[in-house]
Each structure stands twice: as structure tokens, then as C-alpha cells.
């Protein structure tokens, strides 16, 4: 019995890693749902933009794969992946910050910028 079991375990592919990652995946999904389920609608745009920036962390993956790349096709695709991921992460965080910068004004400070003067961060 033990012998059979051992043979079986050796023969099967190792699923330890993938099960661990699936566990992480499921837990992260619950955290994600929990964290945003009560966001007021005034913050939907910044939240969308902010979470957009967070998935820019794919840059870490692009860099990892770039390190392993061999040969021209892999290098070219890797270069493209790093470039696109950088656009995502840098652009995402900068644009979200610009959006949120505008939300900081307190009710009593509003009369300071006179006339149609743009608020801070507006560079239209």
C-alpha cells in the first residue's frame, strides 16, 4: 500500500507550487472585492485609474522575462513588454495623482484662486 502510494506520488507531476499560487489567487480575489465594495461613486474614476496603475506592476514580470530572454525574437518582444508595462505603471500613477490632487481643496480655501484661474496641477 505504502509502496503503491509512493510510486504514484513520484510519477505524478508536482502540483505543490500551482496549488499554493491558486490559494494566493483566491485569497487576493476576496481581499480585492472586500476593499472596493463600499467606494462612493465620486471616487470611481480615481479608483479605476489607481487600480489601472497597480496592474502596471506587470513591469516586474516584464523585467524578469527580459533577464531570461535569449535570441533576437525574445529580446525584441521583451523590450516591447518592458516598454508597454512602463507606460502603464508610470502613466497610471502620475495621472491618478493629478486627479486626486484636485480633491484636496477644503471648503474654506476655495475663494483663494481668483476668477477662472486653474487649480493646482491643471496645465491646460
Amino acid at each position: 500500500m505504502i509502496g503503491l502510494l509512493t510510486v504514484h506520488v513520484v510519477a505524478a507531476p508536482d502540483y505543490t507550487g500551482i496549488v499554493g499560487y491558486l490559494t494566493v489567487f483566491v485569497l487576493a480575489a476576496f481581499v480585492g472585492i472586500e476593499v472596493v465594495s463600499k467606494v462612493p461613486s465620486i471616487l470611481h474614476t480615481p479608483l479605476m485609474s489607481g487600480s489601472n496603475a497597480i496592474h502596471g506592476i506587470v513591469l516586474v514580470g516584464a523585467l524578469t522575462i527580459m533577464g531570461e530572454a535569449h535570441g533576437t525574437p525574445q529580446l525584441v518582444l521583451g523590450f516591447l513588454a518592458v516598454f508597454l508595462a512602463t507606460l502603464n505603471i508610470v502613466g497610471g500613477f502620475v495621472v491618478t495623482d493629478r486627479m486626486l490632487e484636485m480633491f484636496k481643496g477644503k471648503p474654506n480655501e476655495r475663494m483663494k484662486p481668483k476668477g477662472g484661474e486653474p487649480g493646482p496641477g491643471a496645465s491646460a
Partner: protein
Amino acid sequence: MPVALTQVVASISLPLSTVRNLVYLVAIIGFILALKGLGSPKYARQGNQLGAAAAILAVAITFTLPSLRHADKNLILALVAIVLGAAIAVPVARKVRMTAMPQLVAVFNGVGGGAAALISIIELLHLHSLGLKPAVYVTAEVLLGVLIGAVSFSGSAIAFIKLQELITGRPITYPGQQVINGIVGVAIAALIVVSLVTGNIAFVYILLVLALILGVIFVLPIGGADVPVLISLLNSFTGLAVAASGFVLDNDLLIVAGTLVGASGIILTRLMSSAMGRSLPNILFSAFGSVITATGGEEGDASRPVRTGTPEDVGVLLAYARKVVIIPGYGLAVAQAQHTVRELADALMARGVEVFFAIHPVAGRMPGHMNVLLAEANVPYDELKEMDEANPEMSTADVALVVGANDTVNPAALATPGSPIFGMPIIHADEAENIVFLKRSMRPGFAGIDNELLYDPKTTMLFGDAKDTLTKLVAAVAEA
């Protein structure tokens, strides 16, 4: 003492790979707190900055990977790509007008999806070049990464083109659409099964092409007004594609960050569609097989009379009102009139008129977009009322001043079951004593349908650019 300390440090010295994973764990905590912060106006900005710091930390520690530590062409190319990407992204993100924000988010989302798809492809190429036959679950991860990433990439591209109005914002339908979409869907499913069974790498390229096509044909029939909800969904897709990359690369950081965004994106998409009073399937698939019953042409129904006023008349009306509700829409943003409308509100309040802004959840081109625009003009929170808060007060308002909005006050959403916007909650401008529309023309709104309220006897139309008209109104109020 120093000797003992050194010994302690030496005894707990960790392998670099463990340190790297611990730093990734710190970044994961940073991202979760960032998302949490983004949920409240008070901490949103700090949250985002925390997220950025976590990202910088994670990217920096990635350069300790053995494969990236020596200055070969891989490292140099990676650095060049980062510098190039940052050099393009920063100025674009800093200079874009707030009105163009939805398009920009679509672009940044799409490129992220593209990067995730590329990562999966490269990993597969890499394994094959090493002569390894990947396990079935690895192939499955790669295929999912390519599929979701590519759909997000091409779908976001079409969403960008729609929002930028390079093509019509209306749903694009053609004969046999459902059949074609069905065929592509079935082909993709079949391809995935075949790839898993045979392990043949060539199928990945076919899958890539089909997924790109799927992204395009999935987005084309979605109407312009629904595109913001779509972007949220595509944002979620990119998150899942990034999570798939994490599975491929055995990277917990990518799995967690991608899944957080994937899950939160789906919740956000649901919140948004319920704000529009519609189900997600209705938004995504309503154009299929249905005839959009748009009454009136591009210029509305020219034969019906409307009452046109002058800024002077309306200025007097506003100045002597007790309560004025301003209902802003995308037209206000297009005219860059958010600062002028604030001036008008200030002028009225200085005269003792009660003024507040009634914000529809989907005013602008993105849920919450109008709040961002008015915040840009330093309108404080307490003067912004969300729809549910504003509607009970509409019947006591003397004037509802509708600035560049149309669909969000269209009673057809309540009364006309066949209308494309039927079921969408609206701001009840029709309950106010007087209604004033600031509009460029009689053209229908983004949803492409006529608005009965424009012909209402209580309604006064002020045609022209919203900014010009508002400037005249400010002057008229001052003289009244």
C-alpha cells in the same frame, strides 16, 4: 555588543531570493493599502502615493535578479525601454486635459494587457528554446495570459478610438454579428483545447490573432455612453492577465496585484452598471439584434417649437430665485467651463441664493468624472450632491440649470420603455419650477436620442458655447 550584533545579522542573513520575495510582500501590503485608501476622499491621494512607492520598491529589487545583474544587452535593453516608456508616459499623463481622462486610462490599461500577453508568449518561447516541454498547467496559464491580455489590448484600443471620437460613439452593428462572434469564440475554445493536448507552440500565435480580433468585435457594438463601464471591465481583464503572468513566472506579487485589480474591477463594473440602472449583460450585449429606436435625427426634431431665452432674462431669473440646482454634463467639460460655472455659483450665493450641483453618477464620460472636473475648479464637496441626495430637493427648486447635460435628465429613461436609456436613473430636472438648458444645439446627447424636456413649456433654451453663455450669465446676475 557590536560583535554580537554582527553575529545576529550574520546568522539571519537570508538568501537574496528570499529578500526579494519579502520586498515583494511589502509591495503587496502597499498595494492593498493603496486600494483601501482610494476608497475614501480623505486618504485617496496618500493611498495612490503609497502604491507608487510600493511599485518603485518592487521594480528596484527586481534588478537584483541574477540574470539582470550583469551589464549585458538584456539589462541595457530593459533600461532603455524603461527610460523611453517613462519619458513618454510622464508628459502625456501630466498634460492631458481632464476631459480626456477616460481615453488615457483606456490607453494605459491596454498597454498593460499587451505587456501581460507578451510575457506569456516570451516565457513559452523561452521554455521551448531550452528544449523543455512545459506541464499542461503551465501551457494553460500561458494561453490564458495571452487570451485575456490580447483581448484587453485590442478592446482598449477600440474604446480609445470611440472615446476620442475617431469613429462614431454609437453601437456598430452589422449583419451576422452574433454568428461571427460565436465562431470566433468557439474557435478560441477549440484552439485552447488543441494546444493543451498537443502542446504545439504554433497555436499560441493563432490564439493571439484570434484574441485580438475578439477584443475588437467585443467592443464595437457597445455604445459610446457605455464605454466607461467597458473600460472598467477591461481594466479588470488586464488585472487577470497580469495574474496569469504571475502564475507563469511563479511570482506572488503579480498574482496578488493582478487579482486585486481583477476582482475590484469586476465589483467596480457592477457598481457602475447599477448606477446606470442596467445590468452588465445588458450593457455589453444590448446592441445585438436590437434596433436602436432613436427618434429625431442629428439635429433633433426641427419642426417642434422650443422657447429660446436671452442670458439677460435668465440672469434675472437666477438672481431672484431662492434655490438653484446646477446639473452639469459633459458639454460643460468640453467647453472647459467648470471654472466659469463656479463663478456663477459664487455670484448667486453672494446674493443669498441657495445653490448646489446635482451630479449624476455617469455625468461626463466616466462614472465620477464630473466630480473630478468640478474639483479641478475648486468647487467644494458640500456643494456637490449625488443624484439620490439631490432628487428629493428638485421639486422645491426654482430653477434647474442644465449645463451641457442631456441624457442624464431625459424623462424618457423613466417613461419610454423602448428607449435605449430606459431604466437609467435620472436627475428629476422636470420637477423644478423652471428649467434652463445651456446647449450648443438641439442635437441629441451621447445616447443619440431626443429629449422631450427640451420642448417642455417650463423650459428655456440658451444656445451657444457653455463657457460664453455662463460668462454672460455671470454679468447678467451682477447687473440684476
